[in-house]
């Protein structure tokens, strides 16, 4: 509709808003790319609001989080949105990757964008990990201690990385300020730049067509696709706000470096890693993880090579299903065995 009207817009706007979108994108499943972006914006907004009260020092971090949660008006809401947002972001990024993976949307010429995406996935996890440790209650403190300790097992550079990250031998005030910096400055900025790059590359390459089904029919980015995004944003905000009331963010005992609590567990999205590391030697586990990361990062090229050798086998289906299945099994097992 209103085509005449739009044509009158300047060219730059035309490039942004009139981007042709293939018809298959009308399926909600293909809106998973915009979901993490919306959540990222929420996280930035609520994150900025949290820094108004948060104090990154070992004595006050816990107290200020408690203060936000229990004393500040609607503090539980802002903190709840941030917390739920982080969880949903992991889910959304994961689902987006699954979709891209199974539709082989990473195939030439989009290999670079896949690599950027994988990088963003790691940054997201990094944000979650650093954010969790900022709470500075018992669970958060010990999750940080255990989590960073794993870095030591990285071959050759382990201790170097560990000391760099912790700013000392143990989790201390230096760790907290470093993590605070990572969480509010370095990682979000990196993520923002990568998101920009990611979107620009999508625009440059155009939205990928489904393999084998070339639909010529297209629709415009605006208004329909924008409406898609708006609906998702509203839906997420509604659900997350409701969740903050039903399941408000909690806070445990203040961190005590002298007492390790009985049950320490990472956040649920690290359960699978946690599971693997429990049952194989630490060195082996870390090495396996590194190998997995390398394969994952360079999958588009590996996939290409494999296809040339075995054109009949759908490697991405097999490998993807196995990884997802294992991830789910490990996660569920850890959740249940808790």
């Amino acid at each position, binding site marked *: 509709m209103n085509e005449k009207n739009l044509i009158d817009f300047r060219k730059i706007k035309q490039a942004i808003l009139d981007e042709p979108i293939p018809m298959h994108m009308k399926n909600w499943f293909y809106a998973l790319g915009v979901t993490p972006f919306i959540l990222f914006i929420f996280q930035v907004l609520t994150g900025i*609001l949290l820094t108004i009260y948060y104090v990154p020092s070992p004595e006050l971090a816990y*107290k200020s989080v408690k203060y936000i949660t229990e004393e500040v008006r609607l503090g539980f809401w802002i903190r709840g949105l941030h917390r739920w947002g982080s969880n949903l972001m992991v889910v959304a990024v994961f689902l987006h990757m699954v979709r891209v993976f199974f539709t082989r949307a990473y195939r030439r010429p989009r290999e670079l964008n896949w690599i950027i995406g994988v990088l963003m996935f790691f940054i997201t996890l990094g944000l979650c990990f650093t954010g969790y440790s900022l709470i500075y209650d018992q669970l958060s403190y010990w999750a940080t201690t255990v989590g960073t300790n794993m870095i030591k097992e990285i071959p050759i550079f382990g201790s170097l990385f560990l000391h760099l990250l912790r700013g000392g031998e143990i989790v201390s005030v230096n760790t907290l300020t470093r993590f605070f910096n990572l969480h509010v400055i370095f990682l979000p900025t990196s993520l923002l730049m990568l998101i920009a790059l990611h979107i620009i590359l999508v625009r440059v390459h155009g939205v990928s067509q489904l393999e084998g089904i070339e639909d010529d029919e297209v629709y415009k980015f605006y208004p329909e696709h924008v409406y898609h995004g708006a609906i998702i944003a509203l839906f997420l905000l509604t659900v997350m706000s409701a969740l903050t009331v039903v399941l408000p963010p909690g806070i445990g005992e203040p961190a005590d470096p002298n007492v390790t609590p009985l049950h320490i567990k990472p956040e649920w999205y690290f359960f699978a890693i946690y599971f693997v590391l429990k049952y194989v030697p630490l060195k082996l586990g870390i090495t396996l993880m590194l190998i997995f990361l390398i394969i994952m990062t360079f999958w588009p090229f590996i996939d290409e090579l494999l296809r040339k050798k075995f054109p009949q086998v759908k490697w991405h289906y097999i490998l993807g299903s196995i990884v997802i299945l294992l991830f789910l099994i490990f996660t569920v097992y850890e959740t249940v065995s808790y």
Partner: protein
Amino acid sequence: MKKETRREFLVNLIMGGGILSAFVLFIFNIAKYIYPKLGAPTFRKVVIAKADEIELGQVKEVRFGDQILYLANINGKYKVFSSICTHLGCRVRWEENNQRFFCPCHHAVFDKDGKVLSGPPPRPLDEFKVDVEGRFVYMWVEEKKSWGII
């Protein structure tokens, strides 16, 4: 431009109204989060002096925490004055020989009762509520808010 049908108008109205209300409320909630909770102040009674510590007509400097205050016995009634000048917040001093409070910043002068004698201050010195119980002079101070930081 085509004329909007009634249905379309209704849809636009729902959408516009909804977005507007959600947006306003969203911003309002965030503003509420940012704005500090002030609440009505609560007061606590503290001992500031013994009644026999100060003679009739005398003015004496007393301290509570970091505040310098002046306790005056005016015709048997006790008063506690803040030493903050009501003009621009400098510290007033009690001058025993002149029997007056004097503010060096703009030469304001208050009498023993806290009233402005000369100078720019718009109102008398601030007073604290005072109670006398038995042999003690109590003063009501505002309870400081803390979340355990101090």
